[in-house]
């Protein structure tokens, strides 16, 4: 493989990593259950992918841009949507609408704070997240949080062993990749990320583009919250606690530039698979939670150090 092609496609590294880790896992159990492992990993990794795509768009829009409200949006969306569904199929449509409403509302709140009040994105999304988190905590008292049976089936459904949600978000990832590469919106996001001043002078409508980026991130997080709550049979207060760190980790490991201006959707997918398969492998090998965290952390730092040492 040629060097230039590799530099332009940094997601290949995490894909290679994912394949290696999968191979090791399957080898360590003498080849049994390889497809089952992969299928489960695809299902779980999908949740990282959903929020990762949103975080990737935000981070690509330039230094300082980050969405720290993702886990709070997931929690609020999961609880409210499960709450209005009452575990009935009749409430399914309303539940989905409520989830999307949470996403839109959270996105608008973030945009108002960032663009309207001129608050740095990190603190704006953090503060909005605080508010949503305490809304969830207050709401969660005495509410039932079980999904509609149809939604539960959908979140667990498989076609030829492949989870339906994984297929769905493979398609979504394809669309996002196309939009980033070919549409004027996608090019605008990357242009702002590379040089906001130059983009402004070139006529890119910055406020509109930035608003869209944060809206998409929040809506994706709310969809992830809805699906994760269904997938795990109900919403819980700690269901999203890993997702702040993971949403950033999959973006960076996948090869998206943390300084913005360069994004790879394929990287989000391969890094999500990679990270989830590592957890699976360490589980299979009987490694405890502590060592698992240490190894995950070292991998995140190590991959970053290695990838940054190559000339940009």
């Amino acid at each position, binding site marked *: 493989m040629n060097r230039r092609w590799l530099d332009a496609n940094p997601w290949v590294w995490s894909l290679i990593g994912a394949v290696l880790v999968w191979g090791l896992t399957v080898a360590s159990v003498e080849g049994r259950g390889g497809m089952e492992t992969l299928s489960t990993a695809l299902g779980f990794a999908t949740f990282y992918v959903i929020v990762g795509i949103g975080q990737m768009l935000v981070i690509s829009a*330039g230094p300082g841009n980050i969405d720290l409200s993702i886990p709070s949006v997931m929690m609020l969306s999961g609880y409210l949507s499960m709450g209005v569904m009452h575990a009935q199929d009749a409430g399914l449509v309303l539940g989905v609408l409520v989830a999307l409403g949470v996403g839109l509302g959270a996105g608008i709140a973030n945009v108002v*704070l960032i663009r309207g009040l*001129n608050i740095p994105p990190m603190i*704006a999304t953090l503060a909005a997240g605080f508010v949503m988190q305490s*809304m969830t905590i207050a709401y969660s008292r005495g509410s039932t949080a079980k999904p509609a049976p149809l939604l539960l089936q959908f979140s667990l459904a498989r076609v030829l062993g492949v989870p339906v949600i994984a297929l769905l978000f493979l398609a979504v990832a394809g669309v996002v990749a196309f939009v980033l590469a070919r549409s004027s919106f996608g090019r605008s996001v990357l242009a702002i990320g590379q040089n906001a001043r130059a983009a402004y002078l070139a006529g890119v409508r910055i406020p509109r583009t930035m608003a869209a980026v944060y809206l998409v991130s929040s809506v994706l997080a709310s969809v992830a919250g809805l699906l994760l709550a269904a997938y795990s049979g109900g919403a819980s207060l700690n269901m999203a606690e890993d997702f702040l760190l993971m949403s950033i980790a999959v973006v960076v490991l996948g090869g998206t530039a*943390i300084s913005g201006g360069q994004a790879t959707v394929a990287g989000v997918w391969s890094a999500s698979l990679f990270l989830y398969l590592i957890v699976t492998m360490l589980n299979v090998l009987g490694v405890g939670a*502590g*060592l698992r965290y240490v190894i995950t952390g070292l991998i995140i730092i190590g991959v970053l150090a290695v990838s940054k040492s190559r000339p940009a």
Partner: protein
Amino acid sequence: MQREVASAGGAPASDADPVPRRRFSGRVLLPAAALAVMLAAIFVLQPRAMSYNGMRLLLGFSLPLMFAAMAQMCVIAASDIDLGLGTYIGLVNSLSALLLADRPLLGVLSLVGCVLAYAGMGAFIEARRLPSIVVTLGASFVWLGLALLVLPTPGGASPAWLSALVRLKPPLVPLSIVVAVLLALVGHWLFMRSSYGVVLRGIGSTPQAVRRAGWSLLTARTVLYGLAGVFGLIAGLVLTGLNTTGDANFGAPYTLLSISAVIVGGGEFFGGIVAPVGAVIGAFIMLLTGSLLSFMDVSTDWQLSVQGAILILVLGTRAFRRRRA
């Protein structure tokens, strides 16, 4: 040093604002006023809080938070951010609860190792020019993992001297206020008065100028992260003394709380603009939201909302003042 620097977000409209500021204008006065209002409200709602013991109970858990805020401020001074501080405090909490009482030597060595690891992280970030947000994020997994390795389930014990230390009752003024004043003075001297403090803040605002003036960026960032490691260490030790036990997850909330405290206290994410006195005040503001709510008979479920609202209020005001300046 006291100039505003372009804020982030990529908006051309919010580019560099050349208006110089007086030393304390707004940056510390605004949070100080906010704290005064909060305290006044608490005293009106609950007059009994206005006594030695009342204040002692009210401010008991301000000790770990003010040291956490000072640690976070060291990192923010370099225009970096530390997303792993909370789990680091959890690691110190676990190590000290497990080792300090029974095997003091091993305990002290492990804690020194923690601080060296923090300083090393700063050197690593500078040497490889890595984004701090991702390195500290990865490190947060490492600290949490190590804490779970040494203390898989909550337990251990605080050494007697440590518990006694955090329960000291100095005459007239409760311990947390004495420590807060001392910490604010030390921080102020270190960052705003000492000559090396200018270098430390300088790497957050104009690293090129600092380098051309002959200072090592590597040393400065290592020192800043080392200081953060020391303050984080104290936060973890105090937490052990207060809780008299260790838990890998105890420290987690301190990441976001410490960032909030620094920002509410007048610090900025970019440009090496920090306010040590403000950071300590910010820590008190964040802590008192809970007490204020319970005195107002509002469920503490809403504490996070109030903390979020305070952040929005303070930063919204600051951005508004900047636009008019």
